[in-house]
């Protein structure tokens, strides 16, 4: 079998420790199984809408693994978008929570049945609530970064979004506010570039060669990386985070990723087949390097698929939110 094209000569053999490779792989498989279960639930009528991140696992899993996890400005903040189940699972969340959000049950830990799938909120880990408007998170993220800079320590703010949304002004706001000479900020600005905005190809709408070039205009160190390679993603994210933690200045990553099931259930949520599948490619490398056998990987996938099917059956019988609960949490109570 020929070498997968992702392997650079310099990078073979696999650059990470075996234990780390296994953890990344495990989380990628778990995330894919979760996303496929969410799509199943949608297709079976156990949810009104699906949106998620199959095709972004190789980037999003290392991101979650590398985050400094905790609550408050001493820890990392994540202003995420709606394709980041891999990050959430890497932070240690149980996948059944995502299923509950899909089924909009009262038990949904992220929104109590109020929001779409993939719209996570975990204050305990500084994960800001994901919202549907594209790119608003880029306007908000400098605020948490300011508090972290003032707090001291090495906590950073991470903001992610898609390529299409960089056309919104909030993306420019983020670049401006992160690099004010009066107060440069410890922020890792990320764009996962899948080259699509729903049905519109990015190259029809964007004249810039790389989105990262826009960050360079602000003097931000910026890289365009292969987000389909979990090893490259891990190493680049690690380097970027170390820079931001130490220098207390912004860093920019544009990660080229795939969108394996289209934009959302609105476009059918069917496997597209003509994009790089990061999991498939990673597994070929793991097999080739003797890290895992095909059998072991198939067993893992089957185990997660079965676990998630069981979890979905459990979630199906859980209650919907009480209609009277609409009045809860309009305001926070004084603490």
């Amino acid at each position, binding site marked *: 079998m020929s070498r997968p094209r992702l392997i650079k000569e310099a990078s073979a053999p696999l650059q990470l420790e075996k234990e780390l490779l296994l953890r990344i792989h495990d989380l990628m498989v778990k995330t894919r199984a979760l996303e496929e279960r969410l799509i199943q639930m949608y297709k079976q009528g156990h949810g009104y809408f699906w949106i998620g991140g199959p095709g972004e696992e190789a980037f999003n899993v290392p991101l979650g693994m590398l985050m400094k996890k905790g609550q*408050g*400005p001493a820890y990392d*903040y994540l*202003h995420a978008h709606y394709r980041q189940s891999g990050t959430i699972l890497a932070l240690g969340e149980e996948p059944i929570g995502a299923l509950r959000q899909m089924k909009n049950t009262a038990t*949904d830990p*992220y*929104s*109590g049945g*109020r*929001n779409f799938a993939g*719209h996570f*909120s*975990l*204050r305990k880990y500084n994960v*800001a*609530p994901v*919202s549907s*408007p594209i790119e*608003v998170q*880029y*306007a*908000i*993220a*400098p*605020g*948490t*970064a*300011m*508090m*972290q800079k*003032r*707090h001291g320590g090495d906590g950073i*703010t991470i903001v992610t979004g898609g390529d299409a949304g960089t056309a919104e*002004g*909030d993306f420019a*706001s983020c670049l*401006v*506010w992160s690099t*004010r000479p*009066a107060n440069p900020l410890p922020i890792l600005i990320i764009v996962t570039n899948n080259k699509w905005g729903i049905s519109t190809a990015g190259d029809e709408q964007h004249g810039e060669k790389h989105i990262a070039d826009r960050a360079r205009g602000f003097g931000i160190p910026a890289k365009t990386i292969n987000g389909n390679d979990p090893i490259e993603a891990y190493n680049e994210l690690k380097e970027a985070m170390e820079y931001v933690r130490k220098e207390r200045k912004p860093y920019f990553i544009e990660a080229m990723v795939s969108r394996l099931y289209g934009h959302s259930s609105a476009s059918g949520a069917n496997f597209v087949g003509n994009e790089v599948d990061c999991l498939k490619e990673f597994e070929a490398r793991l097999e080739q390097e003797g890290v895992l056998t095909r059998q072991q990987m198939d067993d893992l996938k089957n185990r997660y698929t079965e676990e998630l099917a069981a979890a979905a059956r459990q979630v199906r019988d859980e209650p919907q939110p009480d209609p009277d609960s609409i009045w*809860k*949490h*309009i*305001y*926070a*109570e*004084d*603490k």
Partner: protein
Amino acid sequence: MANMAQAIRMALHYAEENLGVTDIFGEDVGMPLGGVFTCTQGLKTAWNSPLDERGIIGAAMGIAMGGGRPVAEIQFCDYVYNTIDLLKLAGNTCWSSNGDWNMPMVVRTPVGSGIRGSIYHSHSFDATMTHIPGWKVVMPSTPLDAYGLLITACKEQNPVMFLEPKALLRVKGEERIPGEPDDDRALSKMIDAPLGDRSQWKAQWPELQEFAIPFGKGKLVREGSQVTVVSYGRTLPLCAKAAATLADEGISAEVIDLRSLWPYDWEMIKQSVQKTGRVLFVNEDTEVTNFGEHLVRRTVEELFFSLLAPPRLLAGKFLPGIGLADSLEMASVPQQNDITEAIRKLAAEQP
């Protein structure tokens, strides 16, 4: 007595010293200007932001999420409109995260006409802002109320929109702010930045005391028996003056300063209307889908059998803007005569 701009400044000083306010910011909010209306002069946590309203609201949200307590300013409410979806997001963050997150943030913005501000410095924002759930919305008409409401705003766990009637920012109060010196000139010397070089200037703050006005409580400005007038902001003193004028004609008008638009003091309105049987709501935002229309609707639904006349709304004309010429501004939003006449007419209506 302090004017409203000084009262706001003193409340912010009190809040940054005592209530944990961490960031007072916006366009030209820091020194040397200290705000285009001088509301933020000499404050230790004030800083200048880029000219980016979405960035300002976004940063305030982030600061609140990061454990800070921001007071952001939008220089004129006319420029807040491109932040509407962020305001919506700030208002729904607690609800949509099922109580996981909350947003202790204050946004201040000058509103309304009265300075011949033409099309983009005369807008009102109360109608639009009261369409955005999850916020608390207040609008003082006196310096003391501005002080007390802003202190409450800075103690809130939720987003607060603090609307400043720009026509009243320079008007001196009739009530003393707790801790304010007796002499106006002494106060000015202490806290107003000097003209010219301000680089070495520091405010000398008086020993201010906490004075918090709870949200949702109106103020009975004048008692009366024949007609209730409910207003807030710039039009409130006009209503009070109209009531005083009409008293000479034997018309007894009760005047309520709503102060807090959301939540609002329905009990006060209700008790007054049950007594008078007539009510006029007055504000200067455009009249179609105006907040006063909500109050009219509620009055009709809940107080119909107490009414002696249809509830009325006197508001700004439904126009794309307020023109610069004196004649245009005067014709576009309620003026003294419009209000006096509307009260006189309503008082005379019989079933």
